[in-house]
């Protein structure tokens, strides 16, 4: 609240002087070297919000506790193996990946890539726009890529929680979950075996799968540079390779799901040491 009259009274402006008292302001506290700003005290404004949020959430949890109790099954026994064995729900996405990948990929390499990839995000995203508000249009690539990965994670979790029953087979909610599913008649093949069926020699088929796998990554690393010149320039070489390498790794999951469902392919590359 500016006090024009008081200011004039105390220090009348004099056009001959190069200095003057600019403004007296009424208030309980004081601020210096600050632009006028629309701020409020944390006590009570923010603290009330935090308190209300905490109390409401706690009330919700207590309400859940009245009808849903923490599960406790029979005592642990190495003699009886449950079927299916399920990890906690937040890791069921990884367990679901086990259907499509070998354990070293599903359980180790992919999760590590996820965490490292997440950590790298701020250093890979060169777009300065969209800070401080819910932004969609200004950063389409970042938003689409992140949400695609996030959605994949949740889809795999939902499948693991609600659609996997005995022997990790697919069960619909209306199926009888106590009956084993008849094993699918379709047999899964590896890519190199399929190629051999097409008349390739064993070694040739192996090499063809290696080339195909390398080609997969080459396409992901080469195509964006051709399609999005400006964006690629912006990223620079190092960021570009990391971004599209991680992107290719992320796309391995939907790719393997697709190959499995559409062509009954189990592995698209088999080496003496590992399978992919």
């Amino acid at each position: 609240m500016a006090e024009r009259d008081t200011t004039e009274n105390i220090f009348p402006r004099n056009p001959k002087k190069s200095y003057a008292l600019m403004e007296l302001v009424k208030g309980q506290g004081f601020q210096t070297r600050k632009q006028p700003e629309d701020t409020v005290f944390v006590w009570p404004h923010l603290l009330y919000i935090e308190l209300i949020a905490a109390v409401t959430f706690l009330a919700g949890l207590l309400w859940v506790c009245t009808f849903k109790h923490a599960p406790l099954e029979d005592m642990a026994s190495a003699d009886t193996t449950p079927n299916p064995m399920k990890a906690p729900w937040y890791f069921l996405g990884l367990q679901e990946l086990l259907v499509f990948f070998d354990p070293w990929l599903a359980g180790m390499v992919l999760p590590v890539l996820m965490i490292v990839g997440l950590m790298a995000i701020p250093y890979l995203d060169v777009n300065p726009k969209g800070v401080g508000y819910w932004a969609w249009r200004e950063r389409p690539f970042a938003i689409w890529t992140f949400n695609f990965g996030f959605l994949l994670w949740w889809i795999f979790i939902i499948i693991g929680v609600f659609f996997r029953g005995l022997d990790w087979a697919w069960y619909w909610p209306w199926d009888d979950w106590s009956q084993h599913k008849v094993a699918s008649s379709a047999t899964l093949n590896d890519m190199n075996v399929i190629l051999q069926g097409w008349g390739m020699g064993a070694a040739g088929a192996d090499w063809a799968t290696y080339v195909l796998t390398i080609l997969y990554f080459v396409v992901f690393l080469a195509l964006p540079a051709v399609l999005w010149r400006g964006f690629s320039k912006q990223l620079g070489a190092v960021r570009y390779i990391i971004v599209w390498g991680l992107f290719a790794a992320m796309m391995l999951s939907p790719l393997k799901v697709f190959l499995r469902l559409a062509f009954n392919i189990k592995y698209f590359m088999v080496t003496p040491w590992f399978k992919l």
Partner: protein
Amino acid sequence: MIDRLVKYVRDSQVWQSIFRHGYPDTDRNQSLVMFSSVLLHLHPVKIRRSALKFRYTMCLGGLSAFMFLLLTFTGIFLMFYYVPDTRAAYGNIKDITSNVFMGGLMRDLHKWSAEAMVFLVWAHMFRVFMTGAYKAPRELNWVVGCILLTATLLLSWTGYLLPWDQLALWAITVGTKMAEATPFIGYAGPWGQQLGFRVDNDIRFLLIGGTVVGQNALLRFYVLHCVALPVIITLGMVVHFWRIRKDGFSGPL
């Protein structure tokens, strides 16, 4: 009479040493309360009015921290009644649910707030991403956040074993199966055996202290769950909150 008593208490040395200023209903006291309280000073004294908007943060980070406090509280309660011994653990849990006063509620609350924390931390990450709050100068805080996310998952997972029921044993068996498939340092992973790793000396053996999930695994998970990981999360949170204050809140202007 009562007024004089109140005044006497308020002027006493004890009261003055605890409450350094009057009730925070003036600008001066509202500032002092933030400076003089170690917990409140995680906050700034003043914030932009627009930063109060619920739909920007949806309180997800704050609620995650609140879940951690609630879990610490209920967790300490449970620790009084729990022995990490494969012969005793399951019975302890049974006792907690049926014989200990408030035990069932404390265990339920511990369980559901743990699940809520996992969900809230993910949701918080999603919010921070969608609002671009990880961009410069807040890159490092995003990294710290990712570490906290990982620690939250591990904390929840190590707690999963402690009831020592069928659910616990086999969920952890599935999880640690993954560890043995680690490339190079797991005996079932690529190049593991070539490098000399066996079932009794690889990374999974280190994690569970044996070739199967047993007494050693229970003790290790107990120590990780009750000491190691909470310490890591606490340190992570200290840095996380500190960096918010140093880098500034990302919210709308």
